């Protein structure tokens, strides 16, 4: 009522009256005790409008003014009809903007996009950096043309100018105010129009990309459909599988890890009760299954799912027996109505196929009974032809495991079906008419079944001859052979292939410009040998003895004395040096020598020498007693015997020697020691073979052995710096193409 009156008298009210009226209405409303939420009203113009006041009016839609209502008042006049139309059109065309993404999500998207961009930007440096890393000698500062600072040069010139008297005078009166100047030049090189446009374009592209990503995220967040999510999930699984396969090829270690994860999930599934037919839902379904086809299917699906999930994942090199079993199992009739029967995959396609197949089989039975033996023979011939043709067709696509079975077995693959049909038809046109009909029928049925490419389905005709069985066996053998060959090939090929792929993958991740190192020198990357002073001065003898003692237990002396057994005939070494000494001569010489030294006992003498040598090399006992430590010391005081015994480090009585059991041979073991400590024990890092390393050492670098120019090149240091020059960080000018 109120609103009506106010509308009527609106024009006559002054502002004061309006306020008064409002107050009155307020008072009246207050009489009514119940609290009304009032619309917030602004009295002051402010820049910041609180978001809390942006509610819909308390009175519902009535309170707000709609443009349509306003335009209604215009309809009377013809000239303004246009306006209302425009408004309507605008109203139709416009729609509310989508709610912005949640902040964390939006931020994440922004960050990922920005990071990718910066990564690309940083990639531009790859070439420069690699070039610098590889180069054998760099001289810093890098940029050769030293830029003179323009301003500095100006100042420099002005310093030498003689000032006039007037200028000096002026300076006295107006001391120069030191100003705090900061150059605000952002760009050193002002952009051209083209560059500016390019930059704008790039920014727009980036924004669009970001927007696209956001929109996608938003869209996906909104979808509630279970089916969609199911499909999504399936896709994800497929993708994962694909990735896994890829991984298997490229990175077997990772793949193994993943496989373990799968195994783990399988185990979890096994000991959980999920996907078993024991739950409430499953029991309900069971009850319903008698009458409802859908519930039956559901149950079957559930069971197969559990079976799939709990099945051990097959290893790649599964034995041929299993596969054979599969082949034979497939054609076995699967009772569609019974979900508990071991159906390998009760998908719709398979079910369809099976039903079709059954029909066909029944028909076939009937016709087989009717037909003559001759006719069947003809059919056999015909099918043989077809098969051979099929094989020919197949050859280019040998990768796609299309299996073909000769005689009475047909394979229809989705990939090939069309071509096969055509060829079959063509062939049959040439042949007799009655068979043609039959054939076509068969083909039609097969095509109806729409089997997938991975499924191998074979049709078995009723009357199986013994001959056919043999042939089948032959086929199987052939298949096995083929498979074996394939596996072998796989084993041989993928190593290199995997390597290549890995390299490709690496390339994708980042630009790789690595070059072989030009100058090979041993790279030593190991900790410094850090010591305190005391450690250096250690008793050499003591340490020697200690090492001997520690190593003693490990060595096992062999107890065989070859002298005791028998004299071994000299073996001729395979050398290029001709064996001049003949046996006869040797015998002669021996006789001469024995004659000359008849009186001397050479053997005895030699043995004495040998034992002397051994004694010389034997480590001696070390006496560590300190005179006067713990007892009286001085001249004439004897050190306690027990103490002496206690503090002497005893050397082992016998140390195994290399010449222990070598008979008439003395090996001087210490002769090598002096050289040994200078020799390298293992090939240092960048070198791969001893030969390479030896070659690098053998090549001299000094000017005693090399011409002066070569010498100068060889001794060039890796890094040279100019004295007293500041080395500035690399600047972006390096990336500019100076020629253009």
């Amino acid at each position, binding site marked *: 009522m109120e609103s009506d009156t106010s509308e009527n008298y609106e024009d006559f009210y002054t502002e004061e009256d309006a306020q008064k009226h409002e107050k009155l209405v307020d008072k009246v409303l207050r009489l009514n005790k119940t609290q009304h939420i009032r619309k917030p009203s602004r009295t002051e113009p402010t820049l910041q409008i609180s978001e809390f006041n942006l509610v819909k009016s308390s009175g519902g839609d009535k309170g707000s003014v709609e443009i349509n209502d306003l335009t209604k008042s215009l309809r009377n006049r013809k000239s303004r009809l246009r306006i209302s139309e425009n408004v309507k059109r605008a109203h139709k065309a416009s729609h509310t903007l989508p709610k912005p993404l949640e902040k964390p999500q939006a931020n994440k998207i922004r960050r990922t996009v*920005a*990071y990718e961009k910066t990564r690309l930007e940083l990639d531009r440096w790859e070439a420069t950096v690699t070039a610098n890393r590889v180069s054998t000698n760099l001289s810093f500062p890098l940029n050769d043309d030293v830029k003179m600072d323009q301003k500095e040069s100006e100042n420099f010139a002005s310093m030498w100018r003689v000032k006039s008297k007037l200028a000096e005078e002026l300076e006295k009166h107006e001391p120069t105010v030191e100003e*705090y100047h900061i150059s605000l030049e*952002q760009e050193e090189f002002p952009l051209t129009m083209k560059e500016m446009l390019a930059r704008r374009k790039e920014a727009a592209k980036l924004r669009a990309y970001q927007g696209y990503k956001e929109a996608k995220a938003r869209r996906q967040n909104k979808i509630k459909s279970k089916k969609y999510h199911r499909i999504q999930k399936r896709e994800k699984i497929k993708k994962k599988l694909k990735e896994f396969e890829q991984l298997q090829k490229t990175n077997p270690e990772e793949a193994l890890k993943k496989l373990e994860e799968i195994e783990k999930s399988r185990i979890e599934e096994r000991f959980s009760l999920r996907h078993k037919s024991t739950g409430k839902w499953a029991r309900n379904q069971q009850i319903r299954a008698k009458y409802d086809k859908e519930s039956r299917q559901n149950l079957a699906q559930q069971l197969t799912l559990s079976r799939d999930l709990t099945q051990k994942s097959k290893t790649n090199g599964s034995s041929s027996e299993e596969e054979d079993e599969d082949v034979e199992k497939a054609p076995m009739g699967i009772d569609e109505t019974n979900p508990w029967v071991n159906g390998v995959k009760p998908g719709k396609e398979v079910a369809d196929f099976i039903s079709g197949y059954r029909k066909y089989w029944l028909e076939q039975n009937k016709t087989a009974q009717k037909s003559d033996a001759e006719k069947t023979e003809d059919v056999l011939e015909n099918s043989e032809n077809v098969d051979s043709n099929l094989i020919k067709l197949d050859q280019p696509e040998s990768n796609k495991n299309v299996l073909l079975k000769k005689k009475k077995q047909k394979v229809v693959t989705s990939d090939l079906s069309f071509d096969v049909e055509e060829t079959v038809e063509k062939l049959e046109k040439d042949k007799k008419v009655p068979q043609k009909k039959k054939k076509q029928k068969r083909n039609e049925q097969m095509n109806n079944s729409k089997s997938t490419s991975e499924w191998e389905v074979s049709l078995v005709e009723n009357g199986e001859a013994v001959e056919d069985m043999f042939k089948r066996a032959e086929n199987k053998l052939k298949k096995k052979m083929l498979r074996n060959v394939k596996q072998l090939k796989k084993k041989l090929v993928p190593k290199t292939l995997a390597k290549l792929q890995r390299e490709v993958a690496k390339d994708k991740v*980042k630009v790789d410009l690595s070059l072989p190192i030009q100058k090979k020198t041993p790279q030593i990357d190991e900790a*410094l040998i*850090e010591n305190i002073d005391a450690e250096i001065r250690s008793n050499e003898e003591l340490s020697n003895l200690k090492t001997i003692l520690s190593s003693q237990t490990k060595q096992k002396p062999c107890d065989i004395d070859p002298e005791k057994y028998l004299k071994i005939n000299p073996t001729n070494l395979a050398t290029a040096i001709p064996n001049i000494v003949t046996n006869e001569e040797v015998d002669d010489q021996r006789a001469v020598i024995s004659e000359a030294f008849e009186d001397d006992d050479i053997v005895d003498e030699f043995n004495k020498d040998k034992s002397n040598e051994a004694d010389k090399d034997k480590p001696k006992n070390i006496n560590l007693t300190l005179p006067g430590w713990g007892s009286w010391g001085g001249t004439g005081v004897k050190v306690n015997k027990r103490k002496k015994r206690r503090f002497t480090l005893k050397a082992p009585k016998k140390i195994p020697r290399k010449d222990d059991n070598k008979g008439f041979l003395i090996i001087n073991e210490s002769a090598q020691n002096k050289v040994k400590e200078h020799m390298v024990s293992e090939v240092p890092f960048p070198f791969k073979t001893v030969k390479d390393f030896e070659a*690098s050492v053998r090549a001299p670098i000094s000017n005693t052995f090399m011409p002066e120019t070569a010498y100068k090149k060889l001794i060039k*240091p890796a890094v040279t710096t100019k004295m007293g020059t500041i*080395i500035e960080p690399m600047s972006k000018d390096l990336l500019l193409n100076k020629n253009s």
Partner: protein
Amino acid sequence: MKVKVISRNPDDYLRETKHDIHKVPRNYDPGLHPFEAAREYTRALNAVKLEKVFAKPFVGNLDGHRDGVSCISNHPKRLSVLISGAYDGEVRVWDLPQKLCLRSFVAHEGVVRGVIYNPAGNHFLTLGDDKTIKTWKTAAPQFGEEEEPVNTVISKTVLTGISHHVKDPVFATCGEICQVWEETRNEPVRTFEWGVDSLHDIAFNPVEPNLLASCASDRSIILYDTRDSGPLRKVVLKLRTNKICWNPMEAFIFTAANEDYNLYTFDTRNLKKPANVHMDHIGAVTYVDYAPTGREFVSGSYDKTIRIFETSKGHSREVYHTKRMQRITCVQWSLDNKYILNGSDEMNIRIWKARASEKLGPLKPREKAALNYSEALKEKYAAHPKIRRIARHRHVPKHVYNAQKELRTIRDKGKRKDANRRAHSKPGEVPHQPEREKHVLKEDQ
């Protein structure tokens, strides 16, 4: 009768001027020099011994601060100037060749957290615990004038670190949040936030100057883009990173000094694992700075030593220490690649040579050639055990030696345990984890 006369062309044996080297006719046939390698080896051995004889890296000491030195900064245009801030709020300007203090004044109440020159070198900024950023003139005040900042900005938040843009009058500070300032304005131009943890260090990329990196107290390193997008990515390590430094010659490489005694070199484009792990310190690494050549970096540590690392190698090539030097708070590599300056807890700033046995000052060409030659020889024979032993032998204080021994046993223990676990479990269950993959916890997008 035929008479044979010995005749020699003087061009073959006489030099043109006395500044030339004597002409020595030589036959370079390797068959005539059977002991080439042996002779060079001996020379290399001598060279490496001489290197040790001349290895005297300590150059000088700047004393004057009355509290520990908290931060130092090089002048971007002059090699002889250094500026340092201390824990008591004092800032000092030093003349390096004369080892003199040119200026000293109290700049802040409380600790001076950061000192930095602007790229032109005519002003420097200081940053203190009193939440102020002060701008000072490089030129010393005239006689009678007082030390006064040109500009003082009072920040709303705590400030802990500062880094200046290479060219522009823009600098960034960190504290509770990361802020980018323009020198002419008193309000930050931009602020970046990611998470609630406080930041304790920040560094502008010198090559790609719109990239910023900072380390936060939640053990993470955060990358920012100053242009528009703000934070880019975050890497979380096992322990806190104390300081980061960008490689001045390789735009995408930076090194982080970590609390777990190691330094990690990262490639910005692949943050999943560090490009290199540098280990040798036996205390938390507090500071890292790159050589201007980008080939090496120096690190200071809580274990009272300074170490120099080559960027491509995992172990240090040099360790510096003195008896009185305490915990290192800051290290700087001088811009001519010759010296290393470091401030430490015990109020001194020390000057070191970057290469311990390098001869300072101008060299005669022959001298230079001889030094280069011996350097090349050392490089060539580096793998030989005698030379290696001498070249890599360092004397370290007892506490470092002992701590190192302890650390080694700890690491060995870990390795042994791993090996045992691997040996006694199903093959492939306990895979070998390379050192580089052990330290990064996660990479946040």
